[in-house]
C-alpha cells in the first residue's frame, strides 16, 4: 500500500490529550498569523485553550456561558478579517448549531469550531454531557468540514489544517489521555483518510478514539488469521470517497467505529459513500439510538460495545456476510 504509514506505535496511554495538543497548537499558530483569535465560554481549562489564554491574552475573548452569542459573534468577527476559533464542549456546540449554520456556514464565514468532551469520552459527567449527535448535525451543514483526529500528534496537524482550510470547520478534540497511533511528522491532509495498517479481508474504518481500538482489534483478528486493514478517517466531510471505494474493491467488507451516533455519524458517512461507489457489507460500531450514562470512558466503551473486542466481533460478523 503506497499510502500506508509507518507501523502504529501502540504504546498505551501517552499521557497526552487531544485537547491539550489542540491548545498548544493554537499557541504555535498564533505566532504565525495575527488574525487568529480564540473564543471561550468559561471552560478554557476544559478545552485546552488556557494555553492560548496565557500566551495571547489580548487575542482571547471570554464570552461567558453563552454559546449562541459566541457562535454568531464569531461570524461577525470573521466578516472583518479575523479568524475566530470557537471553543466549547461538543454538547454545547449542539446548542448553537443553528448559529453555526446561519451566521457562519450560510454566511460564507471562515470560523473553526472546536469541540472537546465528545461522546463517551466525557465519562462521569453522564448522559446529559455525552454528545453523540454532533457529527451528524455538523456534517449536514453545507460546506462544513468535519474532523475527528485520532491522537494528540494528529490533533496538532489537524488544528493547522483546520485553520488553513478554505471554509468553516467543525473539529472534535478529546478529554481523556489518548494512545498514540500516528507518528510525529506524519502527513495530514484534510479530506484524505490514511491507511494505518494494511489488510485484505476486511477494512476497519474509524475516527477519533476508535482508531486506537480498531488497531487493537486488528491485532486480535490477526491472531485468528483474519487480515484487517485499518483506515483512520479523520475527515468525515468532505469524505474520501476514492479511498473507501478502493478499500471496498480490495477487502469487500467493512466495520465502522466511532464514539458517536452511527445515525448520521461515521457509519452513515461510510455507508452513503459506498452505496454510491462500491457497495459492500458494513457492520457499524458506535452509539445506536440510546443516551449515555456515568462511568469511566474505558468501562463505558465496553458497556456500549465500542471497545476493541466489540470491533473484532463486528469484523467476524461482517466476514460471514461477504
Amino acid at each position, binding site marked *: 500500500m503506497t499510502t500506508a504509514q509507518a507501523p502504529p506505535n501502540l504504546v498505551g496511554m501517552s499521557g497526552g490529550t487531544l485537547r491539550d495538543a489542540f491548545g498548544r497548537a493554537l499557541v504555535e499558530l498564533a505566532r504565525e498569523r495575527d488574525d487568529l*483569535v480564540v473564543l471561550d465560554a468559561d471552560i478554557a481549562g476544559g478545552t485546552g485553550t488556557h494555553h492560548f489564554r496565557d500566551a495571547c491574552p489580548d*487575542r482571547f*475573548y471570554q*464570552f*461567558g456561558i*453563552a454559546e*449562541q*452569542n*459566541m*457562535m*454568531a*459573534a*464569531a*461570524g*461577525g*468577527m*470573521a*466578516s*472583518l*478579517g*479575523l479568524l*475566530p476559533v470557537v471553543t466549547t464542549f461538543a454538547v454545547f456546540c449542539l446548542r448553537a448549531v*443553528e*448559529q453555526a449554520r*446561519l*451566521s457562519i456556514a*450560510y*454566511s*460564507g464565514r471562515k470560523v473553526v469550531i472546536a469541540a472537546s468532551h465528545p461522546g463517551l469520552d466525557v465519562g462521569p459527567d453522564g448522559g446529559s454531557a455525552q454528545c453523540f449527535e454532533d457529527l451528524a448535525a455538523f456534517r449536514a451543514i453545507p460546506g462544513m468540514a468535519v474532523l475527528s483526529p485520532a491522537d494528540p500528534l494528529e490533533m496538532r496537524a489537524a488544528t493547522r489544517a483546520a485553520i488553513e482550510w478554505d471554509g468553516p470547520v467543525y473539529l472534535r478534540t478529546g478529554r481523556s489521555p489518548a494512545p498514540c497511533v500516528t507518528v510525529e511528522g506524519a502527513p495530514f491532509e484534510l479530506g484524505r483518510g490514511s491507511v494505518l495498517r494494511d489488510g485484505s479481508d476486511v477494512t476497519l474504518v474509524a475516527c477519533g478514539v476508535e482508531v486506537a481500538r480498531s488497531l487493537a482489534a486488528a491485532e486480535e483478528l490477526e491472531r485468528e488469521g483474519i487480515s484487517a486493514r485499518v483506515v483512520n478517517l479523520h475527515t468525515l466531510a468532505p469524505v474520501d470517497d476514492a479511498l473507501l471505494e478502493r478499500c471496498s474493491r480490495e477487502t469487500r467488507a467493512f466495520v465502522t467505529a466511532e464514539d458517536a451516533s452511527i445515525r448520521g455519524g461515521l457509519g452513515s458517512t461510510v455507508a452513503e459513500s459506498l452505496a454510491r461507489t462500491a457497495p459492500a457489507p458494513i457492520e457499524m460500531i458506535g452509539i445506536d439510538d440510546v443516551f449515555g450514562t456515568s462511568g469511566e470512558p474505558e468501562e463505558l466503551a465496553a458497556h456500549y460495545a465500542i471497545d476493541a473486542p466489540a470491533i473484532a466481533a463486528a469484523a467476524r460478523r461482517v466476514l460471514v456476510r461477504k
Partner: protein
Amino acid sequence: MTIAASESTRALAERALSVRRGLIAAIHHAGSGHPGGSLSATDLLVWLWENLYREAPPNAADGGEQFVLSKGHACAALYAVGAEFGLIERAELLRFRKLGSPLQGHTHVVDLPWTGASTGSLGQGFSVAIGKALALRHRCLPGAVTVILGDGELQEGEIWEGAMFAAHHGLDRLCAIVDYNKMQSDDRNENICGLEPLPEKWRAFGWHVTEIDGHDLDAIGEAIRAARAHEGAPSAIVAHTLKGKGVSFMEGSPLWHGSVALSADETGRALRDLGAGEDEIAAWLAGSVPA
C-alpha cells in the same frame, strides 16, 4: 455629521415615502412578505442611509461603517432603501422573493455584502453586530456598528446573552435600535410575552439608553449622534414606532406582520396612502418601474 435642517428633513421624509411605496410594490409582486414591520423600520433605515451610508455602503471587510438588520423579515424595507440609494436596480424590487433574485425573503450576505449578515433567525444578527464591534476594536479599524432589532426579537435569549457581553466588554461603538412597534407575528407583544419595562431592561444590562419617536427623522439623528458620542458602554435606542406606518388599513394591526399577500386593490390603496399618483400606482401594479 451635519444637523438636518427642517427643509432637508422634509426632503428625507419624501424619500422615506418613496421607499415605502417601493417595498409595498415588492411585497405585492412577491405574493408574500412582511409589510407591517418593514413600514415601521423605514424611517430608521432612510436616516442611516442618508447620513451614514450614502457615500459608501456599509459592511466593507476592511472596516468603516457596519450595519445589520437583525429583524431580517423586514428586508423589503432594506432592499427598497438600496434601490432608493442606488445599490440595486429599482426593477429588482419586483423580483423580491423570486427564484434567481439576490433579494431573498431574508437577507443573504453572500449575495448582497452590504446587508452585513444573513438573517431570518431572530437574535443572530445582533450577535453578528457584536462580533463586528469587537473586530473593529481588535483590529483598530475606524467605524461603528448599527443594528436594528425587532421587539418580538427581544424574546430570544441570545439577545440578552449579547446585551450582557457587549456591556461587559464596553463596546461603545455599537448602537442597537429597537423598532418598538409593540407587535409581533401573532399579536401584541404584551399578549405574547411582555417586554416592559423595556428601557429599564437595557439600562439594567449596562447600556446607555434613549427613547425616541422612531418616525421623527430629527429625533433619530439626535439619538444616533448621542449614542456615538457616548463612551464606555454600548447604546440602545428604543424607537417607538407604528406597525404598518403610513398605510391606513395596516397601521396598528398585527394582521399585517406577514407573511401576507397584498392584493392589487390593497396595493393600490396602500400606494395612494403613501403619496403615489394614479400613474405611479398603475405602473407598479403592471409590474414596471414608475418614471
